[in-house]
């Protein structure tokens, strides 16, 4: 059964390319344009991994991350922050909140793909 990935970002261009990338690599992809939508999809589909932007209107990436770690059905799913916030303190904060990886924008498709693969493999062990 294909692994489920939720991509949360408010930038249409990025959503477009990630959607294409992961679909082609055989994942089942869900897309959310903001935190609220992300939480709805999380409840509905319980994805194996979530790629999270941080800066989003109303509910931001940190809150979504918290939500995932506190919801028992998805508490152990993977989380990757994918953000333009590149300060060291931003990255530390993201990892403290329980994310499995923190990648800064602009990112390389290949690295992201590898990282996603690694995390999903680790989680399913």
């Amino acid at each position, binding site marked *: 059964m294909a692994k489920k990935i939720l991509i949360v970002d408010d930038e249409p261009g*990025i959503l477009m*390319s990630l959607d294409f990338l992961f679909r082609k690599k055989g994942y089942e992809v869900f897309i959310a344009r903001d935190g609220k939508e992300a939480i709805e999809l999380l409840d509905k589909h319980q994805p194996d991994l979530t790629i999270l932007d941080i*800066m989003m209107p109303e509910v931001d990436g940190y809150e979504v991350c918290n939500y995932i770690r506190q919801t028992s059905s998805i508490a152990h799913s993977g989380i990757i922050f994918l953000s*333009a916030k590149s300060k060291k303190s931003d990255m530390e904060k993201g990892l403290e909140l329980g994310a499995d990886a923190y990648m800064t924008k*602009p990112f390389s*498709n290949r690295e992201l793909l590898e990282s996603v693969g690694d995390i999903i493999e680790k989680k399913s062990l």
Partner: protein
Amino acid sequence: MESSIIIVSILYLGLIFGLAYAVEKGWGKKFLTKQSGWVYALSLGVYCTAWTFYGSIGRAQMSGIDFLAIYLGPTVIAPLWWIIIRKLVRISKKHGISSLADFIGARYGKRQSISALVATVLLLGVIPYLSLQIKAISESLQIATKIDVASKWYLDPAVFITIIMTCFVVLFGTRYLETNKPKTGIVTVVAFESVFKLVAFLLGGGFIVYGYFQGPSDIFAQASEALPNFYENVQLSDSGDWFWLILISGLSVFLLPRQFQVAIAENLQEQDLKKAMWVFPLYLLLINLFVLPIAFAGILTNHTGDYTLLSFAKENGAFWVILIYLGGLSAATAMLIVSSLALGQMLSNNLILPTYIKKIPSKPINVIRLRQISIAVVLFLAYLYYQGLGKNESLISIGIVSFIAVSQLAPAIIIGTYWKKASSTGVWTGITAGMLVWFVTVILPSINHNYDLNIGNLIHLENPLQIAGLSPTSNAIMLSLFCNLVCFIGFSVHSKPGIEESNQAELFVDVFKFTREYESNLYSASTSFPNIQSLLFKFLGEKRTEEVLNRYARINNLDWKSNPQADSRMISYAERLLTEAIGPASARIMIASVVQEEDISINEVVNILKESQEVISLNRQLKQQSEQLQALTKDLQSANDRLKKLSEIKDDFLYTVTHELRTPLTSIRSQAELLLDMGSEMEPEEEKNFLQTMVRDCERLTRLISDVLDLEKFESGNQKLNIRKHHIQDIIHEVIGSMRQTIEAKNIQLEVNISDAIPTTFFDYDRMVQVFTNLLSNAMKFCDQNNGRIRISSYQVDKMIKVNVIDNGDGIDAEKAVRIFDKFYQAHNQMRKKPSGTGLGLAICKNIVQLHGGKIYMLPEAPKGTRFSFEIPIYKTNFSQHG
């Protein structure tokens, strides 16, 4: 009536005794210290004697407003007090001086002869003036009570008043050996009497002016009808007396012994002068307010002469008689108290003591007792003068005789404190010449003939020095001061003063430059300690000598027994103590007699003084430099803080910019990689879609970069505006035109309302297009998505052109409205990511509008929506060319 007046007199005198006693005992100390400025200013009111209280009206009846001259003099000179009197105060405090004779004596080399001369001039000039006050008290009492005093001298109240005043001054004026100790009791009484006489005069005057008549204008109207020579009376006399009287009264205000006493010797702090400078002239104005109306009221109702006020009062019962009589009594007693104190001190210190102590006295001298006797002698002399010569003179005439005499001291004191060359020879000859002229033009005529009481011009008899064409008063003042000045300056220029005198000249003229420590270095002298001790003992008494020497030893950590040598500082200290008791001239002689002085050459003295000046100016420079350094440090600190803040802002800005750049860049990179790696797996449609997005993101990047550069130019001030004359409506129409398609596509309702009356003005056309485009596209973004409505209006407000863009969107909170013009405000406000745009648009708009001298702001619009407005000034010329 008689008995009640006498009882009231005794009660009043009891009151001032009580007040002086209470104050000396410390009563009201807090209040008096706090209000020392008022007490000081009011005590100067001792200037207004019975001459003012009774005499002004009599004089006004005879010669109109001439009486005012002697009040205008002090008023005219009041603004200069801060310069002249403050210097006299500073010198006096520094040198322990408390009388005019000591002051002038000390200035010209601490000479006994000069002090004695000054004391003589003052005694001659002022004792008649004292007798005038006694006369005023006596006469007013006679008028009030009808006691006939001619028959028996012991019935004359003058006797009693002389005795009572003597007691008062002896009791409260000689409590301390040191003449420069503040006499708070006396000063407070004098200030109180100033208030009392003013209140009495104003009440009495008001009663006459508004009781007998309907106010001053009524009096003058009636007088101008009734009196044929009314207008002559209220005009200035053409004798030229005015000028001269103003001059000598301006000088007298600190040269009369009583004035020097209250203004300089009893000054507690220099700051009090500032209050006195306006209070005292005001006091003079108030006390003269009713003089002219009362004078004419008197003429109209047949009350004339010096006691016009009293004769009015007598028609209106005991209350008014007592009030006026007490007012006159307070004016006279205040003058008697202060003058006899000052004169008594000069008589003892400058005339009697010097004849005693040519050498060190063998027995201790009771200086205080001598002073008390002198005070009694002064008052007794005044009484004798009253019994003899003075009875027949009008109140005002002796006053001016006194003024002319004391004004002879003016060159010595005023010029002497500003001109170092002024010498004792100049003083001697100047004062002698002036007094001789005074004697010939003022005194001689009055000995030969009695004054005519009915004529206001006091000096009207021929004398050998009368210059044709001048009034006798002008002649006397001018000639005496002229001879005085010529001799003073002439002999000063041609004399060669000794070392002591040159020293004193330096110390007096440059009083603000020297510190006291250096002055003691002026004498290179030594003596043994027992010599000093026994000298002090002669004048200060055993107890006091012990006390002061022990204090000196304690402060300076000295032991007399092991080291009996007295150094020059010790000698200076002893001289200062003696100065306070017996005056500087006598003190100098006494010290010189026990001290082996080494001759110091004038060069050495000058060097010491120079050194002192240099040290002081060096100190001042150092202080200035350290202050400058402190200020500089502070400036640096704040500049540093500012830079830090700026750098923080810059960091923040850079971070935000890079962040904003990353977003489109991310999208572009990701898609480019996809196209490169997986292009073969894409449908042609997908491929095109990716390429389109990449192009759009590239455009976005370009826009962002050019906005950042724009903003940077504006903020660094490098952006130049291309200013030309334009119509604002052209801008609005052009922008709307270019955006019409989008507006219609979004189905937005557009309402445009531009006033026809807007004039052209100067602005940068393209930049204004940028501003308006920004506002309009914002409005399009934020207006209601379904029923969008945008209203645009423009009109003139005062000298500004105003443009409004109003949308009907959700609106923005007031708290955010303030920050919406900040760079990347939307980006910082993470909860609310903008739909599109760079986040710099409004910041750029703000910069553009501000460069035009205008303002831009945002207000919520009721019921729903936001109003953005900007205003630019209407310029008549191209402002950019004026910088």
